[in-house]
């Protein structure tokens, strides 16, 4: 723990993967490895964040991310409070910035924020004095998801550089995809996107990815197949004709997975739409890393909270 404890990030906040350099990413992953071991012990508590207040401010409903951040904070000794703002202040007309100023007055040390609008977490971060972790902003970034995915890949493949990762599905609405593209690119992996053209943002090639329109081509010899959730609540705009047709062409089943490398592994950020973007046989099969991703989530978030706390006043 001593070598790792000198490690810090250049910024006060973690708002995105964009802007992190490779050594910052690997530093976080290395620290997370230690927390993976800790989390498997009976005594999981640390005191790094003792006396610190962490507020999980979620403007958008979330189960797994919010509970993962809550457990991470508690295991490090912080007092953790969950606020689901979607149900209270916003309905009374309070703006994002007013909420930020109000919470700031309560002297939290760490704010973990999710919001449905791209850029909203950065906007909030400018108005508060504590450190801010982006737990997902619109279709922009979800940095801790990308970090936990990277940790999962590294533990199973031993490396990230040189791997071919196929990210498949609803890229257009996905913050997970953007953060993963940037992170994997930074660490030297080859990133492919596989999706119908209506679910790809215009100009996405500029992020340094290769784009495929069929699973057969896109998965060919891929080392990692990363499925994205089809955001059906955002499907009003005629992006795909039907779930049935989507599964036929882009749902991951055993047959499509055979195009990938023989030792290819399957990932999904959850929550899954079984039978829409992924078949249960694959999701629960021997090549699935989906449950391990959830475990890594807690460790990565502990690493992020621990690292950011090192730059807090009086740390």
């Amino acid at each position, binding site marked *: 723990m001593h070598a790792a404890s000198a490690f810090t990030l250049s910024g006060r906040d973690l708002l995105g993967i964009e802007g992190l350099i490779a050594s910052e990413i690997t530093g976080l992953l290395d620290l997370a490895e230690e927390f993976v071991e800790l989390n498997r012990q009976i005594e999981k508590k640390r005191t790094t964040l003792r006396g610190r207040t962490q507020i999980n401010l979620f403007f958008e409903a979330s189960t797994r991310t919010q509970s993962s951040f809550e457990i991470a904070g508690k295991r490090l000794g912080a007092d953790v409070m969950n606020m689901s703002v979607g149900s209270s202040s916003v309905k009374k007309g309070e*703006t994002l*910035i007013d909420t930020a100023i109000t919470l700031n007055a309560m002297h939290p040390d760490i704010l973990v924020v999710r919001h449905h*609008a791209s*850029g909203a977490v950065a*906007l909030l971060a400018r108005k508060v004095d504590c450190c801010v972790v982006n737990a997902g902003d619109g279709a*922009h970034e979800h940095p801790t998801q990308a970090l936990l995915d990277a940790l999962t890949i590294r533990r199973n493949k031993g490396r990230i550089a040189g791997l071919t990762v196929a990210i498949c599905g609803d890229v257009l609405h996905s913050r997970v995809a*953007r953060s993963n593209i940037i992170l994997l690119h930074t660490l030297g992996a080859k990133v492919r996107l596989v999706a119908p053209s209506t679910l790809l943002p*215009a100009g996405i090639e500029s992020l340094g990815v290769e784009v495929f329109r069929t699973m057969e081509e896109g998965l060919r010899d891929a080392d990692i197949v990363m499925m994205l959730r089809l955001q059906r609540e955002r499907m009003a705009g005629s992006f795909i004709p039907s779930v049935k047709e989507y599964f036929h062409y882009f749902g991951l089943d055993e047959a499509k997975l055979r195009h990938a490398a023989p030792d290819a592994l399957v990932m999904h950020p959850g929550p899954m739409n079984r039978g829409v973007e992924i078949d249960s046989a694959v999701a629960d099969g021997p090549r699935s890393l989906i449950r391990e991703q959830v475990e890594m989530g807690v460790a990565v978030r502990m690493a992020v909270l621990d690292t950011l706390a090192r730059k807090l006043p009086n740390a």
Partner: protein
Amino acid sequence: MRDGRLIFRDPRPLLLANARVIDPSRGSDFHGDVYLADGVIKDAGFGIAASGVPDGAEVVDCKGAVVAPGLVDMCAFVGEPGAEHRETLASASHAAAAGGVTTIICQPNTDPVVDDPAIVDFILRRARDTAVVRVHPMAAITKGLRGEEMTEIGLLQAAGAVAFTDGHRSVASAQVLRRTLTYARDFDALLVHHTEDASMSQGAMNEGAFAARLGLSGNPKAAETIVLERDVRLVAGARGRYHAAALTCAESLAVLERAKEAGLPVTASATINHLSFNELDIGAYRTYFRLAPPLRAEDDRQALIRAIASGLIDVVVSDHLPQDVEGKRLPFSEAEPGAIGLETLLSAALRLVHSDQVDLVTLLAALSTRPAAILGLDAGTLRPGAPADVIVFDPGMPYVLEPSMLKSRCRNTPFDEARLDGRVLRTIVAGATVYEYV
């Protein structure tokens, strides 16, 4: 000429001497003097001062600064009636005067909408009583801006509406627009149309790589070009006078060029924002750069500038749209679109002159003579006998735009803290000085 509606203050005669006199209506640019009296331009030429100062005239030594017709801003939103907290006719007129705009053409998307002759009358009376520059309202094309039924074009025009527009809304129904163009032709009325297909413009910015990076939904350029192409076909049949309110991309310019070559009664504007910025200026979700239509790529901006230089685009507008803090201190996709622009219109446009892309006479024509001609206003000229709406400006005077010095009720300017060159020294409306830089 349509009625200017300004309080006549019986000003002293004014001799603007030792000036660079630019009259874009006659394509002239010379060193000389301009003499104003009785609310009109008496003379503009060489050596007026040398032949003796007229009795009782105040003499202003312009020291080589430019004297030109006051600007005619063909697109500005004033919140009166209904949104006086954002802008009133008085505050907009003070902002205009500071920016060298002597005629504001205001938008009808107020509350209530300007779709009734009584509201045209209300605006003209309020402007007469409270504004320091000329104000002419545009009326709605369709009742309530709903895009369904045309307004009383004849009666609204008789009441003083200088043109018809649905503001930042496009008329979705081709049939409604076709009938309105056809009917408007009988009154020689001008339709000013916002060309943006609503179903394709639900996004927050221009579609493309930068929107993908920011995770913002994008509006394709086709949303604009499709509506413009449709409209040009309708004009070809109906032959009513048509003005595209704010073109933003190169593809639309090709459509406009074909329409003009075919001799159709089509003209167009570009906003000062689209001539000054591109989508990358949004940077880290800066909401002052959220505009409708959105900022496009740099190639599009350059194409617009060339179109101003060539005269393909007739008019430069401020697209002044005040938004209060509550409308802009929000995540980008939730912020209100729009930027104020009356006060910075000339300074910002002069950047195109300083970068040698547009000559000054052409630029001033697009800011005064052309919009006046399109709207049928007696403005945008220094011809003797024309109303004395004149500005004096130093095209090279540098300054940094401090938001605190703005006269508008709102501060949402994308030129916040920008370095600008060119400053209005004096604004004269009907012979009376309404603004002076001291």
